[in-house]
């Protein structure tokens, strides 16, 4: 199962459809708080990899800067899933964010306007 976390479903549905078409089961969640609950749940044990946005609204207990919510979620995800692949798919253009993810192991960073759904699905299939 691929857990897909992004607050704007509208802009990821093509990616989700493409992943589904090549055979992945995709679980979509639109916020980090619910996603965190999910990874701790019984169902969450089926997660093979996650697709993660970076700039997302946040509620209590998360970073005080929207542009870094994804980073904080990533760190918490790694506590439960240290080796699973993480595909960061975002519109954030900040270099510090990009650098952070590029330094992580088993982590792949792409901007949505740089990678099209078909190409992205292929990449997930390769590294998942």
């Amino acid at each position: 199962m691929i857990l897909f976390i992004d607050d704007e479903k509208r802009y990821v549905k093509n990616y989700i459809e493409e992943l589904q078409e090549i055979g992945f089961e995709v679980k979509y969640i639109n916020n980090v708080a619910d996603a965190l609950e999910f990874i701790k749940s019984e169902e969450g044990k089926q997660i093979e990899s996650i697709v993660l946005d970076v700039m997302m609204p946040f509620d209590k207990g998360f970073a005080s800067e929207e542009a870094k919510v994804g980073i904080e979620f990533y760190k918490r995800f790694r506590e439960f899933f240290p080796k699973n692949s993480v595909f960061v798919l975002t519109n954030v253009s900040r270099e510090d964010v990009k650098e952070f993810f590029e330094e992580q192991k088993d982590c792949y960073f792409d901007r949505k306007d740089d990678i099209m759904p078909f190409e992205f699905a292929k990449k997930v299939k390769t590294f998942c």
Partner: protein
Amino acid sequence: MPTNNSETTLEKIYARLTNEPLQSAEQKRNTPLKEFTRLVRLLTNTHTCLLTFVDLQKEQVLRIASSSQDQEFEEYLDKELIIHPNGENLRVSFKTAPKIEEYESLSLQKDGGGVSNPEIAKRFGLKYFYSHPIKIDEKLKGYLNFFSTEQVQFSTSLKLQIEIISKFAEIQIFQNEVWKNKNQTLKDAIEELANIKGEDKIDQILRITLEYSKKLLSKNEIFSSVLKFDEKTGMVQELKAIPDTNEKLIPFGNGYYSQALIGEEAVIRDSNSVDWKDIYIDAWQRGTESEMVIPLLIKKEQIRFRNNIVFASRPIGVLNFESRSLNEFTQEDVDILLPLTSQASLLIEKLAIERKNSQLRDIERQVLTEQNQKESLKIIAEGIRKTLDFEFINISLVDDSKKTINTQIVVGIEEENVEKFLQMASHSLSSKDIQAEIVRSKKIEVPDDNDSRFDRAIWKEFRHKYLIRVFVPVISSLTNKCVGTIEAGYQKGFRKHIYESDIQILQGFAGLVVAMLERQNSRILDKISHELRSPIAGILGNIDRLKAHHRDWEKWFIDVKLEDIELDCEILKHNILELEYFLGRPFPKPKIGDDPIFVMKDIVLKTIKQLKSLIEDEGFYFDVNSCIDREDLKKIKIYTDKIQLGRVFYNLLVNSIRYANKNSKIFKLKVIVDDETEKDYFIIRFQDWGIGIKEDYKNKIFDDYFRSPEANAQFVSGTGLGLTISRAIMRKDIKGDLILANSSNPTEFNVKIPKRYEKKPL
């Protein structure tokens, strides 16, 4: 510790100064100059510095202290750095030494104090040079030079530190008969003052000063006290030897304390003095026959008046001595105490500045962690009040789009009047109002209390004629543009001036405002950039899918993808408008077509249909036909700018979707035409049944970048500009209005459109 080399040099200088033979190793450690070296290090916190004295009378340069711990630097100094104004008369000359005329020009500074001179420092290959004139009985005796290999930020605090050293140097160099016996007492006092630790340092300084003053005076049976002056209240407070909560408060008046503070010189009186009985009504209690009051003052404190810096004394307190004997006190007693009282005053000022700087740094840390602009400004304003004791603070920011400067936060007026003040305190940048002028001139100013540039209405309404205040421009470090002003002041009473040292701290607060705005701009730019990329990614994604699969897809599915692309293009257009608004670009002029438009059918319904897929993407069921009564569709037929008005309904609907009740499966929306309530306006009542707007935020939702905490709880993204732009369009372009009519169940916005546009405008 100084190197052996420097100790040898110091010994020689000491011998030359005192004409005393060199002492044993044990005694050497206690020489006054060794002590002085220690003091330099203690007071300046500078590791590598040197003090020389240029003796104009003897035409000698004396290296009087070094705090260097650097062997190499010491050697360099020994070889090279011997300075004298008339270089050729010296045992060792130095080509690039300051010339006598340079010293003269340095001493011509208005305050008669020292000056730093980066040019001279550079010439010596050093980072810092400061020269301070040494005067005895108002006669110039020489200069004390302070050098450092470290970059030193020239501040009021450092200047005070050097003045403290200079005072000590005066005593060390020019010790006379009177001082022979008192030198050790004074040194002990200075050492103790420099080593004060813990809380209430200022009170401790005053108590130590009193204690050593008594020792220096060496008089039997005198009554003494030290009193602290509070500039804010005008009260003089007596400090007991041991802190006591019942310490006496004395109002500022006509007594000797007040005379000494106002006259800025010691007052010596006895029971034969003409004013004794009028003033000294308590004399009989202690049998006092004579009295001496020594003022504790920061002399030549820089103050700001209009655009200029002038000088005034800042009162700190008084030392009071009384005796049962007549004529007990003389001018010589005053002279004996002068070095100690000057040092104490300088130390108090230095501590006050350090405390203020430390508070500024604390507030900076708080502002750094605060995301909300209004809250950040509140922290800054409150910080100014606490740190600098200003009673009135007004932080205003420039609104580039409206070309106005508007108060954001005001402190020091009654809570119930704040809203009124905020409404009144908005001025055109091209007006003659003082704030507009500060934005243009970018200069700090302390205007006269009845300056003609003050807004008279505010001046009268809020009793500003009683204030003395300073205006500090807030200047962006990126653009060098003035982006706002900080106005701060207090009631004119015992505080008559705005001190330059406080203005320096106030500039630090202005820096916090700039940092906050720049951080916020960066965050907003991040968001806008993100909001622009999202629809672009959507369009590209749909095109990619269409290219790959269109042959396999049914026509209806291809239409869905094409509609998605169309909507993303529309979203992109709105997001670009937000970017233009952020950049301060004016809105395009409204374009009114040749034919009238049915607002409900051609704009409202069209927008709803266009955004239907956005509603469905959120997982709601939505029936377009239930939103508008069929009869209303043709009710408003006017000449208007279709695109601009469309943007208003787009923003309203996007907000309804973002703040929809996620627990409901149905998205409910009602748009009703009311053409009866108001004679001159159609009202379109735009209702949704979302999470609503809390009472606290009702007045804030139209503010730039406002996002309620619910936005995060609902996981709603966005820039917080939609409603701001919509209201601006309604007011500026449509000549109508956008009002929040009901905050929940349903949340209702009223879009007011002038009926006069039923006819084509000329």
